[in-house]
């Protein structure tokens, strides 16, 4: 029951459209790149200064001057373009990127997002996450439905410090899919063999149900 990580990524890939410029966050969102349909052209941005990010390189092609926003070595494609950090975030802040897929710690029923900080634990920093959620046209959260301690991650209101207010457009978890219309959350899909009860038991938010 429920979706595997691959199935979650496949579902996330349905949000892609031909010609989209997309930023994928660190972790599971990165894997969505493996599920771009044949014949569809999606250009990946890396916010440290690249459009047209290619896959991880062969060992003999490792280049210390060519990394992604997660500091991993990557490769170049024919369509690759490099630019500086200011130009990169102008692209993001100025609403030129079509889609960002990110992980989350908590999403509230009004679309608030917390994904950068757990007080009391060491603070690593928000990196580009606040800019992405404030500026990208559509923000999709791809995450496990519950935390490691089984506490719900979709909540009435975020208890963790926010990354952005009312910024989430869609949540994809292993249990289903929620969307936001005017900052109101609705359950719109159930994962394989998942029931509405499964969702309710594992969700801290009040949500409408609009399954097709």
């Amino acid at each position, binding site marked *: 029951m429920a979706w595997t990580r691959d199935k979650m990524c496949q579902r996330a890939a349905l949000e892609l459209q031909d010609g989209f410029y997309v930023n994928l966050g660190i972790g599971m969102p990165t894997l969505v790149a493996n599920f771009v349909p044949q014949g569809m052209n999606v250009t990946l941005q*890396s*916010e*440290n*200064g*690249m459009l047209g990010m290619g*896959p*991880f*390189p*062969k*060992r003999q092609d*490792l*280049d*210390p*001057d*060519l*990394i*992604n926003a*997660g*500091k*991993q*070595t*990557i490769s*170049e494609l024919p369509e690759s373009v*490099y*630019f*500086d*950090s*200011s130009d*990169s*975030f*102008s692209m*993001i*802040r100025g609403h030129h990127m079509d889609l960002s897929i990110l992980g989350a710690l908590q999403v509230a029923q009004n679309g*608030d997002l917390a994904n950068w900080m757990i007080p009391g634990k*060491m*603070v*690593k*920093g*928000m*990196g*580009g*996450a*606040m*800019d992405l959620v*404030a*500026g990208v046209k559509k923000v999709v959260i791809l995450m496990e439905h519950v935390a490691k301690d089984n506490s719900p991650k979709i909540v009435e209101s975020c208890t963790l*410090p*926010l*990354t*952005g*207010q*009312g910024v989430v457009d869609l949540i994809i978890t292993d249990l289903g899919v929620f969307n936001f219309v005017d900052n109101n959350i609705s359950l719109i899909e159930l994962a394989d063999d998942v029931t509405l009860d499964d969702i309710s038991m594992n969700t801290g938010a009040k949500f409408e149900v609009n399954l097709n």
Partner: protein
Amino acid sequence: MVNKIYNDALTALDGLLFDGMTIMAGGFGLCGIPENYITAIRNSGVKNLTVISNNCGIDDFGLGLLLNSNQIKKMVSSYVGENKKFEELYLSGELELEFNPQGTLAERCRAGGAGIPAFYTKTGVGTMIADKKETKIFNGETYIMETALKADISIVKAWKSDNDGNLIYRKTARNFNPVMATAGRITLAEVESIVNTGELDPDNIHTPGVYVHRIIQGDSYEKRIERETTSD
């Protein structure tokens, strides 16, 4: 003619370092960092530095070297998660930290270089980043005001320079270097090679020489890879 080329990092830094100063350092993670200037600043022993840089290196490389030697008083960064020494100093109160969203950090540096004292952005509205910052409504939406950043010196790493200080960067090693080059009262560039003026394509200069006051050709670049990831 004014000579911008210096023999080495310590010579280039001569007369510019003082305790309590603010230094901007280009680079993203360990990519495109001014390795030679960082080492020279470590060796100089200058103290109580405010360092503006997207990250703070790792424990034994990059700006992490200045953490180990307790030369940094305050970091202005967007992400410092790669660095255990950072955590230790921060939690013990020996290190101040000002987080900026990455795009806000880049734009604040650009503003500093471009004579823009402040600008408005949606990034961080409703988060702790907005605390104590002025807000203003444009077209019914709330934005926060962010102010410009400048530095006593900026240290940047480019791929090539000509004798006039026109710089070009390579791939994602560009990152914060061009904006920080504009925001230093004095900007010091280190490069992998210096070519004669006229050899670089005038349509493709990333940092015009007007921003670059001192240049060195680094004598060795470690260019460490932080997260080697392959498809093999």
